[in-house]
């Protein structure tokens, strides 16, 4: 597993070969508050980076989740349907949301590493 990277929309991505696992950052989960519902993306869908692909509803608001990269959705975390609060407890591991088969690897390199993301949050 290569290091986690982050988007400006507060998603995290980790890749293994050409498969990227995506979730929302711990910071995002904290600012959303208790998550009560998630509409998972459809498996097989082709997505573009920055495209809205699913929705998380917290007690405070609904938030769109964007795809961080181009590719195809190949798996979703079904356990979130019944227990969306897993995202609150373990946003950056068991709270992963979907997996993408990457169309191209280079987009990943452009994302922020952990240190850059922390700096981005302080801006």
């Amino acid at each position, binding site marked *: 597993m290569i290091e986690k990277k982050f988007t400006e929309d507060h998603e995290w991505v980790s890749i293994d070969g050409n498969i990227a696992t995506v979730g929302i950052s711990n910071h995002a989960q904290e600012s959303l508050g208790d998550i*009560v*519902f998630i509409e998972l993306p459809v498996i097989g869908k082709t997505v573009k980076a920055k495209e809205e692909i699913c929705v998380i509803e917290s*007690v*405070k608001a*609904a938030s769109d989740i964007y795809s961080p990269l181009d590719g195809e959705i190949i798996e979703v975390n079904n356990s979130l349907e019944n227990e969306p609060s897993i995202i609150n407890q373990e946003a950056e591991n068991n709270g992963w949301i979907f997996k993408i088969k990457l169309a191209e690897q280079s987009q990943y390199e452009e994302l922020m590493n952990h240190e850059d993301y922390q700096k981005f949050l302080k801006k």
Partner: protein
Amino acid sequence: MKEHGLTLLPQDIPLRDFHISYGAKMIPFAGFNMPINYKLGIINENKNVRNSSGIFDVSHMGQILIKNTDENIKILEKYIPLNLNKIIKNRNYYSFLLNSDAGIIDDIMISKIIFNNELYFFIVYNASRKIEDEKIFLNTSESILLNNNCLFAIQGPDSHKILNKKINISENMNFLDIIITNYKSENILISRSGYTGEDGFEISIPVKFAENFLKDLINDNKTILCGLGSRDSLRLEAGLSLYGNELNENITPIEAGLTWALDKNRLNKSLNGFKKLLYQLDNIPKKKKIGIISTNKSMIRNGMNIVNKNKQILGLVTSACFSPNLNKSIAMGYIDKEINNSIDLYCVIRDKLEIMEQTKLPFIKKSYKKGGLK
């Protein structure tokens, strides 16, 4: 908050630093930086109040003492649909300030108490309406704005036990009773009231004692600090209206389903908007307030339209939240009175027509200590 081209920064409540040190997440609300929730989160705070107890710092709210004089009563009764000579001492009344068209300038709690050996009206009013309300209160004389008092609300079934350890509170005190009591040689006001549908107390206490008082209360492990997030879900579960959501200057108490709070004997020319109120008593208003529950997991949000299966607009959602006790998305709103109860109601949530279950208010059973609001 923007007004007259100036940017007004939100004010701080006196115990801001205390709340932050206890993990409060602060948000601007009604011109104040307020705790929205603490580390346990909105859902846990809500459940703690229903199951045992929770404490809210609502010091953003307005508090005023207005001397009980004939002149002051004349000024207040133009706006307040109660007979202020007849309201019972040491009881709280839910009421309104009404504009000339019977629209609600604000909803208030008013009581009559003895303060420093004289009779006063004690009024608690909304932070978001301070400017409008105080324009009215300014016309009264010998009034005392309680700017140096914090206001705490301890809510939930264990609240009496917890508060009683700190201050002796008679078991005979009923819901909506209010007392003034001596605390370290100053006056504090305690009423058995709240905004959650649970038994509880609201305490108006001088700022200089407030932090230690609050610390002592939360030392009890049955209670926790709670923020505005859980307060909103608790009041919505209890079917209680919120100014700015269900109530505004274009809605009368009758349209808002709050006719019970009007003293019908006050519907004469001494009261603002009396003609409209009299008319509406005889002619059922066009709107009615209803509760709706989302039948699947999608969340209803404030401002969504309530529609029929053809997406024709029938009404509007005025308040919505996730109900921790029903484990569902719930909402209040107004719909056209003519709409038959058998018609299916929907909300459009992310382009999908989602069917709603229509329900009576409140969503949960209230647990007041006797009496109480209807």
